[in-house]
């Protein structure tokens, strides 16, 4: 299991080299900054200390709940330009369903419960903080039912 919280860009290919060795299925998801509304970048604030602890705890929960053999979570903070990767999750499992579901579960949690806050940056400078959405909250509640 590996959790990285960092301002620097990351290279998915390098991070995935050797990931999931021996598993039957590897799923990866990479989130990129969209240029909606003419923005040029996002600024991402986080809660140093809590972020790392919360990501570790949730990655561990995903390992157990979905029977993963490995998990990787990378999330950047600071200024991230349109087109760059913000974050990535990778899951490795014996079969595809566990790997897909665990990646989905991790993403829904990262959207609404990991201590990150996005702010839009336009050509003129900082704009508003990005508001949380009901859709993201609803997506997270899908996982409330006990497994099985």
């Amino acid at each position, binding site marked *: 299991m590996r959790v990285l919280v960092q301002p620097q860009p990351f290279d998915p290919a390098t991070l995935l080299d050797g990931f999931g060795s021996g598993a039957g299925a590897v799923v990866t998801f990479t989130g990129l900054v969209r240029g909606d509304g003419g923005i040029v970048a996002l600024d*991402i604030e986080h809660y140093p200390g809590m972020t790392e602890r919360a990501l570790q705890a949730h990655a561990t929960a995903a390992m157990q709940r979905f029977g993963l053999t490995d998990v990787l979570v990378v999330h950047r903070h600071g200024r991230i330009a349109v087109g760059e990767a913000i974050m990535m999750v990778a899951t490795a499992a014996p079969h595809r369903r566990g790997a897909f579901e665990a990646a989905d579960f991790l993403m829904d949690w990262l959207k*609404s*419960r990991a*201590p*990150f806050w*996005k702010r839009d940056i336009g050509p003129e400078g900082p704009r508003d*903080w990005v508001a*949380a959405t009901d859709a*993201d909250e609803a997506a997270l509640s899908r996982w409330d039912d006990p497994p099985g």
Partner: protein
Amino acid sequence: MTLDVLYFAWLRERVGVPRERIDTDAATVRDLAADLAGRDDWHAAALSDLTAVRVAIDQQLADLDAPLTGAREVAFFPPMTGG
């Protein structure tokens, strides 16, 4: 009780500092927010309305009515927008 109080995103901007060490007799997070909101206009602008405010006690997500017994660090922030 002495507490480190942290603020993030627009709460940080309204209060004007990212963290501060304060003394309080508050029993719960909600009491602490009321105590702080009564101290000056900046804290009031951040903490008078808690409908869009989330909290963590010692880096664990918590409810507004959670007790502060034994707490060292309390953080106030908007709903998270990661991913």
